[in-house]
């Protein structure tokens, strides 16, 4: 430590390198400069860059645009668009609304939106938290431009009664997937680890109007993480669909969504087939078996995504859904009609027989 005489002997006030000395209520206090212990995550860096970018954009506004933002900010002072009433400057309003829009993948709004906004609260049936599932079910769907924002905490002690200040945004403006919001993948990316059985997870949910950047009132909830078996006993029914999370990495698809939950004579496909080994088909190797009543054959439309000949060709694919006696389960997308293109997206309903 380098101690300068002015610090060490004259009332201990001043700073030298990492040490600050000061007098507090007659006592001399020495403190070492605090450094942030956490690593700056890419998403934190991106968010902070966005805020300064938005702030810079504000300076580019014309006088009339700034005036409009001021008018909007005056309206927002007394209205709780952001969960609590607050004083707000034109610059504040511009940054808050546009940071919401950027979170939802929209561009910066230069003209102030109308302050008149009617955003509903989030209505849902149940939240299921297990070490392998983080899903909100029974969400009452809202059409564009409303998108769902979900904030969640890491698993905390079950004794914590209020952990909503520890939530972070895990989904910034998603559309519910037919009443479901399965956020485990996003949660793992943001939080980094799944909650353990017995942990308490805090959630905050609200709708965001991605056109105006306004958000609705938040719904607050918390759930104790339980085992998958307990969840099933309590009535959790896993959606009957196969996504990239359910397949092995050597599968010949870059995108996979095979949804059996139609209750109709079709399966819904949204899959990008890459092909393999100069064979006009793509194999998807599954982690689990296919439910027995979904084993069979299907047929769906495809459209090329290539760069060369017939890049956009319409095609038909026969799709075999099989469980084998040796334990493997596969979905095979085999080209049938049209010019074969790699890659091809196979989409839409496929008849099941």
């Amino acid at each position, binding site marked *: 430590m380098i101690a300068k005489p002015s610090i060490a002997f004259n009332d201990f006030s001043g700073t030298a390198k990492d040490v600050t000395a000061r007098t507090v209520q007659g006592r001399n206090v020495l403190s070492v400069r605090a450094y942030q212990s956490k690593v700056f995550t890419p998403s934190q860096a991106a968010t902070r860059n966005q805020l300064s970018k938005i702030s810079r954009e504000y300076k580019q506004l014309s006088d009339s645009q700034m005036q409009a933002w001021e008018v909007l900010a005056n309206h927002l002072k007394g209205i709780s668009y952001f969960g609590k009433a607050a004083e707000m400057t034109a610059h504040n309003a511009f940054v808050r609304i546009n940071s919401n829009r950027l979170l939802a993948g929209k561009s910066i709004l230069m003209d102030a939106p109308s302050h008149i906004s009617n955003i509903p609260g989030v209505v849902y049936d149940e939240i299921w938290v297990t070490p392998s599932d983080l899903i909100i079910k029974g969400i009452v*769907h809202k*059409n564009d431009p409303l998108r769902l924002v979900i904030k969640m905490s890491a698993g905390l002690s079950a004794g914590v009664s209020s952990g909503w200040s520890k939530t972070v945004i895990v989904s910034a403006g998603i559309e519910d*997937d*037919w*009443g*479901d919001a399965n956020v485990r993948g996003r949660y793992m990316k943001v939080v980094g680890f799944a909650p353990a059985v017995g942990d308490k997870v805090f959630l905050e949910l609200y709708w965001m109007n991605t056109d105006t950047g306004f958000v609705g009132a938040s719904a607050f909830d918390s759930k104790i993480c339980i085992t998958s078996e307990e969840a099933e006993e309590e009535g959790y029914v896993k*959606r*009957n669909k196969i996504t990239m999370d359910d397949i092995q990495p050597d599968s010949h698809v870059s995108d996979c969504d095979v*949804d*059996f*939950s*139609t*209750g*109709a*004579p*079709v*399966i*819904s496909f*949204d899959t990008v087939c890459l092909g393999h080994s100069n064979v006009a088909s793509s194999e998807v190797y599954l982690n689990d078996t296919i*439910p027995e*009543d*979904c084993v*069979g*054959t299907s*047929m*769906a*439309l*495809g*459209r*090329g995504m290539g760069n060369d*000949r*017939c*890049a*956009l*060709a*319409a*095609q*038909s694919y*026969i799709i075999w859904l099989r469980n084998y006696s040796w334990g493997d389960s596969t979905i095979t997308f085999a080209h*049938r*009609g*049209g*010019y*074969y293109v790699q890659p091809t997206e196979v*989409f*839409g*309903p496929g*008849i*099941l*027989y």
Partner: protein
Amino acid sequence: MFNSTGNNFGAGSIQFKDYQAENYVVLNAKFTYDPTNAAYLAADVLEIYVPDLAIDRSAVAGVIMRFRDVRTSYGYTWDNSGGTALKSWIKDKNTICIEKLTNFDEKGDITIYMQALYPMLNQPGSPIKGTRTRINMTQETRYLYWDSETFCVIFDHWVFVHIGFSSCSYSYRDSPWEATMGNFPTDVCADVPFCGGGNQYNPSVNGISEAHIENGIFTCQERTSGFEDTGYSPFIFAFLVRDGENNSE
């Protein structure tokens, strides 16, 4: 059967043949629009407005778009008509959407063949399994040959059909084609796109011809010029509404 109440791309009134169940609908329509009209140019997504449907939204389905491109050279007519599959979905009870693909707008009028089943998702229960029925394509003098994926799956109010073309006897290649579709319901009447065949002047897509199914008879008056090119495997893929007394549940 119902008519559209409007659209945002200048297509005029569109007539639909429909079967509407609680959790899915089958819609059939064939219509044409001019891609130079102002309404089309202003639209991001093609929207067709309709009276209340049985479902208030759907997952994505596929429809086929077709443009005409017929050229004459040295007295020979060269048909390079083509097209591809477009995504379509029901946005709400009164709006059917079709993705806007502008790649072929300079070709003139575009025809859409909507022969699609629009399902809902996250519905209770498993998918319903149908029965594959082989379509027995017959002719008095056999000149058309079909591949093994020529079949249908028949339901009370609609039928799924896939027809895979294999080959045609050389002397019949330019004639109108006709074949009887054995095992196929006779209460289906539809123009269907026959996708496939090479397309020399529009190499980003297959050729697309048009066939017709009525009273269990398949007809196809003419095909695009590269129809029998190797590797282009012409096919028909359609969910077709059967003509019944009452097709809505």
